[in-house]
């Protein structure tokens, strides 16, 4: 089971931290620009996680040895 994409929660938490840092801290301009760029990237990723998504539906199957596997579920 691979964990491929970042989760929406991760992106949102990062984004919030970046905004807080930019709002509250007196930081180096270079760093500020770098943070901003990262913020924009997170923002884009967070939006796309919500917008492009389609619910993935799977059926959980337990195999004879007790391990779990999933299969497509026809709905």
């Amino acid at each position, binding site marked *: 089971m691979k964990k491929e994409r970042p989760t929406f929660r991760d992106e949102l938490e990062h984004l919030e931290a970046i905004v807080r840092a930019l*709002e509250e801290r007196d930081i180096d301009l270079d760093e500020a620009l770098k943070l901003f760029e990262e913020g924009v990237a997170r*923002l884009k990723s967070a939006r796309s996680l919500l917008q492009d*998504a389609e619910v993935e539906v799977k059926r959980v199957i337990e195999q004879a040895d007790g391990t779990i596997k999933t299969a497509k579920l026809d709905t």
Partner: protein
Amino acid sequence: MGGVDLFDTSGSASAEGAWSVREVTRRARQLIESGLQRCWVRGEISGLKAYQSGHWYFTLRDAQAQVRCVMWRTDNQRLGPPPEDGTEVFVEARPTVWEERGEFRLTVKTLIPTAAGGLWQLQLERAKAALARDGLLDPERKRPLPAFPQRIAVVTSPDGAALRDILSVIGRRWPAAAVWVVPTRVQGEGAEDELCAALERLHRIPDVDVAIVGRGGGSREDLWVFNSERVARALAAVPIPTISAVGHETDVTLTDLVADLRAPTPSAAAEAAVPDRGAVLDTVDGLARRLGRSLTGQLDMGSQRLARTEDRLAGVIGRLLERSTARVDAVSARLDALSPLKVLARGYAVARDGRGRVLKSVAALRPGLDFRLTVADGEVDARVTKGES
């Protein structure tokens, strides 16, 4: 009459120390109440009277005995109309003594006609009490649901309306989620075992954020597996937050009590499990605006700092320049004053020999020597005619 020893049952030994009626009935009540816990009693109702106040008074009897009962309005109001005389019921009651009448009596808290699944209800109450004893119904056990679930397990029948409703709500509100269906029968023969096994399976499915357990509406019998104590315990053991959603009924099942959240329907469970995409996008937009503003703020701060630095630099350079100009002026004034031309202008002359050496003494100006004389506006040739006089 404080300080009475409850278990001093010796009473008054002589007429002189006679108890009042009030004292003896109060003692009897205290003895009964401390000696007999709340209990379930089975019997037949007779002589039920529902008073204007809403309280019910009746007698519970069987072939050998009878006992007076009261059921207060606060306890009977969810039951509907009072049962008819002759109805066989289970009551959960606290034995007491009605002091005003010196009458042994039951204060009934719960009343279930045996015909209407009374035995089931009795089992349910017993199971509930057992779960409560083990702390499984404690409100502190309730875990908060995750804000942005990624993977949602749904334990239900794969063919049921409940699953369709759940998928449609999640698809509309939070399509970023993955729904993993753990199929199980939810009624009839074998449903209890299957449901327990499905719940146990949740321990082994990785990265599940929240689980919904439930089914659509049905008869009391259809929903009964969700009142199984075994199923309730299996649900309580699930390591992730759970939502129980059984039927469209107002009946609360054991799984409802044990789950972290009780939802009245499967759709409502799905709504509770996921946030609304629109609202979350609004939050994201708000963050985007803050991000933009915060950068502008940082840039403003930077340019203000730059401007301040510029001002300071200009000041320093200005002062430096001023100081050097003054020095240059002073030096050039002095240079000017020292210029030999200035001296010549005042009437002095310089005598030089043919090789350009300045002739500064009488000894150098021997008689007959040709030399050149420089005055302010030019040079002339000259000769020494006479020695020192």
